[in-house]
């Protein structure tokens, strides 16, 4: 268990994972569980569960926590930095040089051609999130929530962050009420049982 292992493990999983944080998780699992044996599969599952429950990017949460567990605060720093810095530098270098050559017709053509591809990638992601919505809420819930979201975001122009905060708050209240109703029902059930016993 050394800083060097943390560095290599997280640099490697950061550089080999494509498609954003969620796709990196199996690679992090390989480094943490199989290669360096920092933890067993069950502990990794617990960490992943918490990372999924908290908001924000997944891979950096995993890197920070595993680094922290292995080598404390400095370990957390080493893990998260080695995970993100290589691609962050590549990103700035690549886009920076693209913009430095900005006015050439070839660069303009390249940038124009990327537009529809990005549009399509976003359309595919839209479809994936629609599927998740449908799975999570059923048909009626999906249509209602998507309808509300379209009207609020596109026609009324409510800020997306506020919109998401409202939806999260709504889900929280809904769960709270449902939980309370469930405990009340079980309370009533138990008093009824007692009166039957009498």
């Amino acid at each position: 268990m050394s800083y060097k292992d943390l560095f290599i493990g997280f640099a490697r999983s950061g550089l080999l994972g494509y498609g954003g944080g969620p796709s990196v998780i199996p690679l992090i699992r390989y480094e943490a569980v199989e290669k360096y044996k920092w933890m067993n599969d069950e502990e990794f599952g617990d960490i992943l569960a918490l990372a999924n429950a908290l908001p924000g990017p997944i891979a950096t949460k995993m890197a920070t926590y595993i680094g922290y567990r292995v080598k404390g605060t400095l370990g957390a720093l080493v893990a998260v930095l080695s995970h993100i810095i290589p691609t962050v530098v590549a990103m700035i270098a690549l886009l920076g040089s693209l913009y430095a050559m900005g006015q050439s017709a070839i660069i303009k053509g390249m940038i124009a051609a990327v537009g529809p591809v990005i549009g399509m990638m976003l359309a595919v992601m839209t479809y994936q999130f629609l599927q998740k919505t449908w799975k999570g809420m059923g048909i009626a819930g999906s249509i209602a929530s998507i309808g509300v979201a379209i009207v609020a975001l596109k026609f009324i122009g409510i800020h997306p962050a506020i919109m998401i905060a409202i939806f999260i708050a709504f889900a929280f209240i809904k769960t709270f009420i449902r939980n309370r109703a469930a405990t009340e029902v079980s309370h009533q059930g138990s008093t009824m049982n007692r009166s039957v016993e009498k």
Partner: protein
Amino acid sequence: MIYLQLFWAFFISNILGYGGGPPSIPLIQAEVVDTYKWLTLKEFGDVLAIGNALPGPIATKMAAFVGFQVAGVAGATIALIATVLPSAIAMVILFKSVAYFKDSPYVKEMTKSVQPVVAVLLGILAYQFFIHAFYDSGMIHTAILAIGSFVAMEVIKIHPSIVIVSSLAYGAILLS
């Protein structure tokens, strides 16, 4: 002031992105393009394209580049800290109560509730990119690139970075 704005923009768009980096993309777009006007929608598209072509987490790549464009290395650092640090600290502090979070009905409901909003935001964004492409490159090129990239990524399952590099080559030759 600019550092505060950078911090706020990336803090808010990442802390509300339930389910990892990708759901944060439309929220980052709202702050960076609509609210603070640091980038045009087209430039944001370039960032997304290069971000998708490179490996590693997407949210941190976007934060670093936008921060760097706006306020140099210090800006990139601030944007990265705002993206990574809040949820990382929460992770370390809350790990002891993981058993509660793992099966909490609150967490499940809250994650679900974000999905329709993210779907609509991504849909609007996709639409905007198609409209821009249509005005810039015309119907035929837009259709070829859109349908071509769909078939390549979703049907033949070619790696996204290869699809993006190919579209860059297409643009260099046919759209320059």
